[in-house]
């Protein structure tokens, strides 16, 4: 019987990514992909292999405590070679709990998951992103897979099986859930910043960029002319040498030429993307991704692309 690589996430979309990761690993190690569901099957979950339903808990929405226990019980019966969990916050809890329950090694938030049949390996960031580490562990092992790295698989499952794991007593019970309020985000703590520059022609066009920032759960900033000269935004939004210094995960510079006095304030951003009509604009030298084009057309196009993902 071929070894099994299991894939699970409490989120359907992430489950499909983990399934792709599992497919990669399975291919390298001549194993079978098994996508795990708990309690009940979810229609949005695809599988490039078979589906395994864990019967017993009242699913399909289960807490990380219940998911970990259910998967551990099933793993003790079915003995998979590797268990991949999507590295959402809940997923990271599930992964670590599984490792403790099964006495497996755990690779956290990895991309480029690989296996040679005896070892599971992956790559992850360490030291606040300064370092890339290759981590590995002897099989059987658990890994939590970096969200967004793998494409979602669209494959349909080629069969289903079940394991009865029995009821799981949970100590922790969920009593409520609220969508996070998207309030005013402070530039210094924002993970995403959309910054407006002189390419924006009128003050009335700023809400379009602010909307984009909101879509990305981010904040709106600007280069100096928009705050100091034109007064379109208060000085607190001015990013640059004489303004605020920021280090978000994503900095999207829109219609900003990219002079030093601006880039000095955002050079520590993790990823920089820029849109400008001028292909020689210095901002592209300071960016990871650039598009030469008209922001008035690109910003709506990006909004559409974002919406399409959901």
């Amino acid at each position, binding site marked *: 019987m071929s070894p099994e690589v299991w894939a699970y996430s409490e989120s359907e979309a992430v489950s499909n990514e983990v399934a792709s990761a599992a497919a990669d690993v399975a291919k390298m190690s001549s194993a079978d992909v098994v996508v795990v569901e708990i309690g009940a099957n979810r229609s949005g979950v695809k599988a490039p292999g078979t589906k395994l339903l864990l019967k017993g808990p009242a699913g399909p929405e289960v807490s990380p405590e219940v998911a970990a226990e259910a998967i551990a019980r099933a793993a003790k019966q079915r003995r998979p070679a590797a268990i991949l969990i999507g590295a959402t916050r809940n997923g990271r809890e599930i992964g670590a709990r599984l490792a403790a329950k099964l006495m497996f090694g755990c690779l956290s938030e990895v991309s480029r998951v690989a296996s040679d049949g005896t070892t599971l390996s992956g790559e992850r960031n360490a030291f606040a992103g300064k370092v*890339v580490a290759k981590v590995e562990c002897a099989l059987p092992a658990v890994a939590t897979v970096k969200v967004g790295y793998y494409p979602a698989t669209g494959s349909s499952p080629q069969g289903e099986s079940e394991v009865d794991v029995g009821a799981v007593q949970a100590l922790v019970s969920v009593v409520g859930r609220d969508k996070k309020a998207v309030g005013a985000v402070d530039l210094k703590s924002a993970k995403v910043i959309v910054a407006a520059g002189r390419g924006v022609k009128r003050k009335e066009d700023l809400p379009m960029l602010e909307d984009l920032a909101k879509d990305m759960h981010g904040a709106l900033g600007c280069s100096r002319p928009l705050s100091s000269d034109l007064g379109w935004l208060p000085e607190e939004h001015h990013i640059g040498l004489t303004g605020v210094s920021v280090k978000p995960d994503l900095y999207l510079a829109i219609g900003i030429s990219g002079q030093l006095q601006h880039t000095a304030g955002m050079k520590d951003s993790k990823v920089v993307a820029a849109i400008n009509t001028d292909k020689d604009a210095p901002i592209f030298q300071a960016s990871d*991704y650039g598009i030469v084009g008209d922001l008035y057309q690109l910003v709506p196009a990006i909004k559409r692309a974002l919406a399409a993902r959901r």
Partner: protein
Amino acid sequence: MKIAVCVKNAVDETELKIDSGGKPVLTGAVTRMSAFDKNAVEEGLRLKAAHQGEVVIFTVGPPESKKTMKEALAMGADRGVLVAGDPTAIDTMRTASMLSAAIKKSGPFDVVLCSEGSSDAYSGQVPPMLGEMMGTAFVSYARRIVVDGQTARVERSLEDSVEVVEAPLPLTASVVSEINEPRYPTLIQIMQAGKKPIEELNGDQLSPAGGYRQASTAAMSAQHSARKHIMIEGSLDEAAVKLVDALTKEGVLSK
């Protein structure tokens, strides 16, 4: 109420040097309290203030870790327990196992707190493993903890939502940095921290090695810091989609 707070003497990533081969220099690296551990200590101190009791700091690490424990003691913790161990020879499972044994030995505790992850490795594995080994209720990513009698009501900070859960004491929890603003110890508190007791335990005796598979780091290299300068081509919509895909793959766009 007895509160245990786990604190790590982590490598200070702002002072981390990279050698000419692009490898991080870990031997002799400058260390300090892991960034979010202060939030965990602060939360422990707030629980102590609300319920009267004791806050005990637990650390697994070399003798050098005492300076980090002293910072926690300066903030107001009562005493510390240092489990001697070489951090390069210990993995998350063993760390959790040593912490669990030490906490049980000094216990029983009503609440055990950790930060969501250490600032150097940030695997976030130790808190859930610790919860399993302690055999208590475990809640991760807590942004608010309220204890009423023998029940804790915890708000969990998830990607797009806040989940409210209830759990019985004893509780093990990991906290996020938004939970509180850690206090600054006054200079006098820093000076007096040196007088608070730190008990030293032998890690190997508490938790012998072996019995599980250990994850290890095969290689490390510095991140390439230069910008990628990738120009995205294509029609408007194509370019927009490519950009969103690239940013998603970079992990900087949440779903």
